[in-house]
C-alpha cells in the first residue's frame, strides 16, 4: 500500500499540489486526470522524488519516501520506474544499452562507468524488448526510432528495473492513436500480468476510462475526484476539466479510441499484443 499523507508542493505564491491524501493498494492501475497545470506531473514526480515535496509524506512499508537520502533514494527510484511524455531515452546510445540502463542501480561504480553489462543484463533487456515487440531494433541507435517505438523502449527500460511501481507521465500525449493504443495496452498488460502498480497521468478522459481501475481527478492542485471510472459523472468531469472540457472529451490525437479497425498488417508490425499474449 502506497500512502500519501497531505502531500504538498508549494511554489512562491501557489500550491502546485495541495495537501493530497491517498491510499493506493498495490496492483491497481490508477489514472490521474486533470487539465494542464492541475498538478498531475508534479504529483507523479514527487512519488519518485524527481520533484521535492514541500510538505506531507509518502509512506510505503512504514518508510517515509520523502525522507530518503543517498543510496536509499536511488534504491527507491530503482523500484519505482517512470515513463515520460518525451521518452527520455539516450538518443545516441543503442536501444539495448538504453534498456540495460534500467539495471544501473545494481551495478558497481567501475562497471557502470566502463559501460560493462553482464550477459544476464543483456538477456533480461532482450526479453523485455521482445515483450514489447521491439527486439529487432536492439542494436539500432535510439534516436532513429519513431515516437511510438521510443516509448516502447522506455517501457522496456522500466521493466528491466523489475519495479513494484510504474509511474507514467502523459505516456501517450506525443503519440498517434495507434501507438497510443499499443502503449496503453502494454501498460495494462504489465499491470495485470506482472502485478506492477501503474500510476498514469492522462490528459484525455476516455483513455482513463478504458484502461484504469481507478480515476483520480485533480483541479488546481486539489483532489476533486477519487473513484471508479463508472462513478465519474459528466458533471464531475466538466468540473475537473473546466475550460478544457471540449478538448478532453473529444476523441483527439492523444485519444486511444480508434473509430476504425486496426489493419491486421499494422497490428502484426506493431506486434506487442501478440508478443504479450493479448491477441484475440
Amino acid at each position, binding site marked *: 500500500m502506497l500512502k500519501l499523507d497531505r502531500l504538498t508542493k508549494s511554489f512562491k505564491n501557489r500550491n502546485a499540489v495541495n495537501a493530497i491524501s491517498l491510499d493506493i493498494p498495490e496492483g491497481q492501475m490508477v489514472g490521474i486526470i486533470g487539465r494542464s497545470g492541475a498538478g498531475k506531473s508534479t504529483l507523479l514526480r514527487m512519488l*519518485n522524488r*524527481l520533484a521535492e515535496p514541500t510538505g506531507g509524506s509518502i509512506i510505503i512499508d512504514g518508510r517515509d519516501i520523502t525522507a530518503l537520502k543517498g543510496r536509499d533514494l*536511488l*534504491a*527507491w*527510484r*530503482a*523500484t519505482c*520506474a*517512470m515513463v*515520460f511524455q*518525451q*521518452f*527520455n*531515452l*539516450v*538518443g*545516441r*546510445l543503442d536501444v539495448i544499452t538504453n534498456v540495460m*540502463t*534500467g539495471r*544501473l*542501480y545494481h551495478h558497481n*561504480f567501475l562497471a*557502470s*562507468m566502463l*559501460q560493462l553489462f553482464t550477459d544476464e543484463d543483456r538477456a533480461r533487456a532482450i526479453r523485455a524488448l521482445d515483450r514489447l515487440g521491439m527486439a529487432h531494433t536492439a542494436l539500432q*541507435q535510439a534516436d*532513429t526510432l519513431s515516437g511510438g517505438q521510443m516509448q516502447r523502449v*522506455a517501457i522496456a*527500460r*522500466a521493466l528491466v*528495473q523489475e519495479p513494484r511501481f510504474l509511474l507514467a507521465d502523459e505516456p501517450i500525449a506525443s503519440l498517434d492513436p495507434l501507438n497510443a493504443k499499443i502503449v496503453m495496452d502494454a501498460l495494462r498488460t504489465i499491470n495485470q500480468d506482472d502485478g506492477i502498480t501503474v500510476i498514469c497521468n492522462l490528459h484525455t478522459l476516455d483513455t482513463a476510462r478504458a484502461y484504469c481501475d481507478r480515476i483520480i481527478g485533480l483541479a488546481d492542485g486539489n483532489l476533486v475526484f477519487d473513484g471508479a471510472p463508472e462513478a465519474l459523472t459528466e458533471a464531475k468531469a466538466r468540473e475537473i476539466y473546466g475550460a478544457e472540457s471540449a478538448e478532453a472529451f473529444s476523441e483527439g490525437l492523444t485519444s486511444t479510441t480508434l473509430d476504425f479497425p486496426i489493419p491486421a498488417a499494422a497490428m502484426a508490425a506493431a506486434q506487442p499484443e501478440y508478443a504479450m499474449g493479448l491477441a484475440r
Partner: protein
Amino acid sequence: MSYTDIAGAGAPQQPNPTDQFEAHRKQMRREKLAMNLLFGALFIVTLAISIHVSRFYPDRLAAGIPRIFEYFGTIMPHLEWQVLFEGRNEAGRATPGSLAFWFADLELYLRLIIETIFMALTATMLGAAAAFLLCFPAAKNLAPNSAIFWISRRFMELCRGVPEILYALILVFAVGIGPIAGVIAIAIHTAGALGKLFAEVNENASLRPVEGIKSVGGNWFEQMRYGVVPQVLPNFTSYTLLRFEINVRASSIVGFVGAGGIGSELNRVISLYSDDRVVAVLILIVLTVTLIDLLSEQLRFYFIGKENLK
C-alpha cells in the same frame, strides 16, 4: 471597420494598436540610438588611451620599420644557384651557399620538431583528460551543488588565466630543464581552456536523457556517463583536436624558457648567431604547424561528417 469594433461594443475603448506599436517602436529605436552613441564614444576614448599608453605614434613606427627589414636582412640565407644542391664533401663539410650548408643542423631540428609534436600530443591528452573530469561539475545545469560548481569554475580560470610560458618558467625551476616542464605547463593551460569549452557544450546538452537515468536510480556519475557523455562526445573530440593544433604552436614556444622542444633551439640560434639558422628553424616550425593544422582539420571534418550522416 476599425479593429476596435471587432472587440465588441461592450469592450472598453482601446488605443489604436498601430499607434501603440509605432510609439513603442520609436521608443525602442531612441533607446538603441542612445546606446550606440554611448558605446561609440567609449570605443574612441579607449582607443585614444591605448595609443597614448603604447606610444603607437607614426614617427616611432617610421623609425622602427626599416630596422625590422635590416634584421631580416641579416638572418636571410645566402644561397648560390650553382652549388644549391651540392652535398657535403669528403671531409664532411658543406659548401657555403648550398642548402646543405644552410640546414647543416637539420637532423637536430627534426629531432626537436618531433619532440615538440609529442610534447603537444602528451599535453593535449593530459589536459583533455583533466578537462573531461572538470567539465561536468563546472556546467551550471549539471553541477551537483553550487559550491562544487564555484570551485571547479575558479580552478579552471586559474589554469587558463596564466599563459603557458609562465607556468613553464616556474616548472623549469621546479622539475628542471627539459620537455616535462613544457608538457605539464601546456597540460595545465589546456585543462582550463578545454574545460571551459567542454562545460559550455554540457550546458547545451538536453537534460531529458539525464532525467531518464535519474529515474532508474542512477547516481550523479551514472547520469553524466549515460545521460550526457554520449551527447557531447563528438563535440569534445572536435575541440580536443583544435586544442592539439594550438598546443603544437604553444610547445614550440615554451622552449624559450628551457621547457623542451624546438623553441629552445630557436632561442639559441637567435641569441647566439642571429644568422640564416633563425630562418631555417622558423621555416620548419611554420611547415610543421601548417601540416598539423591541415591534418587535424581533415580529422575534425571526418568526425563532424560522421555526425551528420547519422
